[in-house]
């Protein structure tokens, strides 16, 4: 939920000061319309990347961040590490 201009400004600050800037990828199950993440025993899935579409959306997030200069991302699903 960041504009290109915001990400560029983060990248600028990090680059000037040699600070890593790490962005958390979205979307995850908690953003999706499914309800399991909000069930009593389902909480643990809320950070998973849910379904093939969310993998695609997450990758789009990462490609966009890299294009804007970001060189560190945080992942919350085993499969997206692969």
């Amino acid at each position: 939920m960041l504009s290109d201009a915001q990400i560029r400004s983060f990248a600028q600050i990090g680059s000037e000061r040699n600070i890593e800037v790490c962005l958390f990828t979205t979307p995850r199950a908690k953003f999706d319309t499914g309800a399991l993440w909000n069930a009593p025993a389902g909480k643990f899935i809320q950070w998973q990347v849910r379904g093939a579409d969310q993998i695609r959306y997450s990758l789009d997030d990462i490609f966009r961040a890299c294009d804007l200069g970001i060189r560190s991302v945080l992942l919350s699903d085993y499969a997206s590490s692969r």
Partner: protein
Amino acid sequence: MGKLRDRGKLPRNLIIKSSAILAPSNPASCSLLERLGADTINVSTDFSTALIGAIREATQAPLDIYAESPDGIGGFVRHFETPELIEHCSSIYIKLGLRNSADIYPYGRHMKSLALRLSLERVRRSKLVYDLIQREYRDAQMSKAGLKFEDLGVPEI
């Protein structure tokens, strides 16, 4: 992502961090994450120094460790443990969430003042932990701020 990076579809110097939400809970899980391409690993936030030490034996990846974790993943306040964590589990990144504070994901401008205040308190708490490390473990080696290290994902513009 690890494969995309290997193939050059993503920048080869892209740092991939695995989140505390994955909460890998044993040395084998951490080793698996490392093989998948994770450059740094957040371990389960409630792990003792001994359990994290066993993970250190199984992986070369720096470990991201909460000296204080956000409420949503435990709210543990472990400032006093940081010297022994450094001694037995390095290389590690020490970080601070905030106990007793709101979860602001996803952030937006409507909560700007709150986010700013949370960030300032994190800085203050970080200084407390920094000072504690200086008192209790003077020989701890800390990366110097402002220098460029290969294992940091510094933006390229």
